[in-house]
């Protein structure tokens, strides 16, 4: 009877594990897509197997003892009053200690290996805000061709070349944005985590956080999910991001496009009216938006870093917005990606209704203004 029970328990556990290893989960730590996550998974396998053996041994042991020595009705029996056994005690003190020492060796060597920063890695600075991520490509060959020749900057989505080793510097920022009720964007602790690519590392404001790095690469082109893993306030859950790994051609094109200033909409188009609203240069009552106060768009006079950089908003390689609270592109009836106007409209109507406490205030935009703004934003690519 006990052995049968063990089989049942084992079968259930195996099923659980198999399901747990499902290949279709976007944040599955057991389905690594790069060497960092792979090593972090591999180092766990031996301890997991040992833990499994101990689990079966101890749980089976408890079950076995409980059944074998259970009191049977009507059979009075006084067990021998055994007080202990020193040799056994020493055994079960030393044996686990040795076992633990053995499993710790590869773990410790991996700690040191993961802490190394290869000098030829591509440098990206990750900036945590409440509640979205900004990315700056700080290598010299990643500067834009206009203005002050600053680094290429993105928000919510980090685009990388597949196969290339990337070294992330993690910074916590507090922008100048504030929510409708005036709560500012505070500098707090975040944690940067893309489960299929790398384990998390905290993003700590102040001097202690300056050394925090993640070194990783993605084997294949693809879209990888990530999110903030350290509770960072109201919308911690909505502080997600995507890592988009591109093949060499797409990467070169993307970099080239990002170095150019954003295109200016055609005169007289809805997008142009939207641009006037964005920059607050339109007619009275029509184009007095304040977007420029916080957002920036490459190659224009909008340069504030308080809120996500919108230069890439209309590009399908930039699939989400507002801490990936909503997708900016959704598959249409034909299966082709098309702009997600409904989500953007809801956001512009009242950011707080979409994402409580969002640091973008409600500007009471009219439906007309919203239509124009959406046309402008989706023209940016």
């Amino acid at each position, binding site marked *: 009877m006990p052995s049968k029970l063990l089989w049942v328990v084992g079968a259930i556990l195996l099923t659980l594990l198999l399901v747990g290893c499902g290949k279709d989960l976007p944040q599955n730590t057991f389905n690594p897509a790069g060497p960092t996550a792979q090593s972090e998974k591999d180092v766990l396998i031996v301890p997991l197997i040992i833990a499994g053996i101990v689990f079966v041994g101890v749980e089976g042991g408890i079950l076995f003892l409980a059944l074998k020595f259970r009191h049977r009705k009507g059979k009075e029996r006084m067990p021998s009053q055994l007080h202990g056994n020193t040799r056994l005690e020493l055994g079960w003190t030393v044996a686990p200690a040795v076992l633990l020492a053995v499993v710790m060796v590869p773990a410790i060597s991996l700690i040191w290996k993961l802490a190394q920063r290869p000098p030829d890695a591509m440098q990206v600075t990750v900036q945590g805000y409440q509640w979205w991520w900004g990315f700056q490509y700080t290598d010299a060959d990643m500067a834009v061709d206009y203005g002050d020749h600053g680094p290429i900057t993105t928000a919510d989505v980090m685009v990388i070349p597949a196969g290339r080793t990337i070294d992330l510097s993690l910074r916590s920022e507090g922008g100048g944005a504030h929510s409708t009720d005036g709560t500012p964007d505070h500098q707090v602790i975040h944690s940067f985590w893309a489960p299929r690519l790398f384990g*998390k590392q905290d993003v700590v404001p102040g001097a202690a956080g300056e050394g925090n790095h993640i070194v990783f690469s993605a084997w294949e082109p693809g879209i990888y*999910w990530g999110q903030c893993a350290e509770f960072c306030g109201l919308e911690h859950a909505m502080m997600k991001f995507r890592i988009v790994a591109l093949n060499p051609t797409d990467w070169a094109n993307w970099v080239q496009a990002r170095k150019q200033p954003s295109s200016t909409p055609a005169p007289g188009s809805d997008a142009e009216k939207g641009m006037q609203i964005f920059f607050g240069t339109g007619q009275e009552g029509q184009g007095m938006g304040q977007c420029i106060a916080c957002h920036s768009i490459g190659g224009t006079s909008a340069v504030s870093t308080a809120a996500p950089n919108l230069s890439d908003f209309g590009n399908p390689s930039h699939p989400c917005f507002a801490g990936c609270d909503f997708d900016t592109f959704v598959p249409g009836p034909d299966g082709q990606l098309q702009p997600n106007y409904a989500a953007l409209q809801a956001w512009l109507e009242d950011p707080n209704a979409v994402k409580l406490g969002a640091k973008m205030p409600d500007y009471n935009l009219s439906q007309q203004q919203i239509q124009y703004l959406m046309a402008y934003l989706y023209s940016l690519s």
Partner: protein
Amino acid sequence: MATITLTPQKGILRRPMATTGFWSWFTTVDHKKIGIMYGLSSFLFFVLGGCEALLIRSQLAKPSNTLLNADQYNQIFTMHGVTMIFLFVMPMSAAFFNYLIPLMIGARDVAFPRLNALSFWVFLLGALFLNSSWFLGGAPDGGWFAYAPNSTTDPGNGLTFYALGLLITGIASTVGAINLAVTVINMRAPGMSLFRMPPFVWMGLVVQFLLAFSLPIITVALFQLLFDRRWDTAFFDPTRGGEPLLWQHMFWLFGHPEVYILILPAFGIFSEILPVFARKPLFGYQFVVFSGIAIGFIGFGVWAHHMFAAGLGPVANTAFGISTAIIAVPTGVKIFNWMGTLYGGDLHLDSPMLFALGGIAMFVIGGLSGVTHSIVPSDYQQTDTYYIVAHFHYVLFGGAIFAIFGAAYYWWPKVFGRMLPEKWGKVQFWILLIGFNLTFAPMHILGLGGMIRREYTYPAALGLTVWNQVSSVGAFTIALSVLLFIIMVIRTQLKPAGLENEDPWDARTLEWTTSCPPPVYNFEEIPTVHSLDEFWHRKYAEDESGRLVRVPAGGSGEDHHSDGHPIHLPSPSFWPLVVSFGFPMLGYGVLYYAWWLVAAGALVIVVGLTGWALEPSVAE
């Protein structure tokens, strides 16, 4: 029959006399009554924390759910943690320690009965203070760990309530810890040497020392948090050179010993229940005791394993990875000794034993997943995910709460003179075991599948909806089990008291030498102790052939020569209640910048303590 003397007093400082009736509960200094009050109030907080858990699981039962918004969810998960840790498991342990330690060491009361009452009232008022935040602008919403600078910059009063509330309950715990430690060290009956103490008392002693030495650290951190929030100090403000990691170090330097504060009482309970129901002594008593002490010491040296991803550098991560692995060793020693206790026993699988065995089995799972956290690089993946949530619920629910239920079934006849229904107890156990595993086993998969903690919702595309639903079903199964327990308790308490057998489990320790419930003075005659498992040895002795046989009643057991001399007991006092009201007054005063209220609170405390000191003792 011994008589109790309560000398009537005159004047304003007259001590209250009543030892029965409703109002006597407010002035009692009897460790048993205080223990019952601790137990009842912490159980109510358990129900409250459980309701919070049900709301959490309801919200997560489907993706992108809108049952709760981010703000409500953050308050609820924060208060679920704070309530379960500070307002349930800690005071519930205090309940058992209070009730049982004096009885187990052969004392009439704790060393400082009035301080004991003070601890309880300060705890209760602090807990109510903390929960009053729900109605005063919102509960704490920064997580039970309240990481700065989110906790220092978070708008609203919630985290100020957190800092003040935990400072108040911290006072209660510190006073209680000193009181109980002194009780164990100083109040043992003649012959009750340290190594004749029941393991539960030993674990109690270790816990009191852990409390006394870890609470001051969190006290400092909470004051700094409070000052940052209230008076704009710069302790954790990175823009002024402050160091957010300082909070984490201080919090976990308290927080990890705290984990053992929560679990060591459970270890003590397992070590009491197992020998009784196996009808043989605890295997390797000294090793169980020493491993408990070792856990207490090493527990102060593993705090940074909560911070592996914080960027402490490879040296610190290596050191704390190793110390974390080391602490598994004494824990393993305990488990093997419990198995040794089972070996060859005559196991009576009554409800207390079922809960103990189930608790150990569940704790082992939590212990094993704990060892995987010491594999630091894979902890970079696991930390702050549901894998961690699964781990500590297996440890704290599987360990502590199963133990608490087991202890309730075991000592219920002692405390109330009534047995909880045995059959329904077993039913409750199986429902709890199934519900518990349904709730928390899937969380391993959720975590490894990439679901983070503390997120109020998740997208369907995460692919983890099914396991979240299983977990939510499990949570309601647990609720069903607790509901069954409550019904059982109410039905049992409505019956008249009275046991056929005042030693229903054939127990081994001194508390069972008294009547059920014990008289107010506990022992007519302070017992003299000759061995570990004193009561067992009074009942059983070896015959000529070395077989253990029952000693006939009135045989070689302790002879009771009651000469009818009076037993002096401390009289009830209302000063502890008066003093305790000063603390929430201080709290609300600081919260609302009402300096008159702060002054009034301080005055209440000073006047109360003066009255306390002037109060005539019964001995005069």
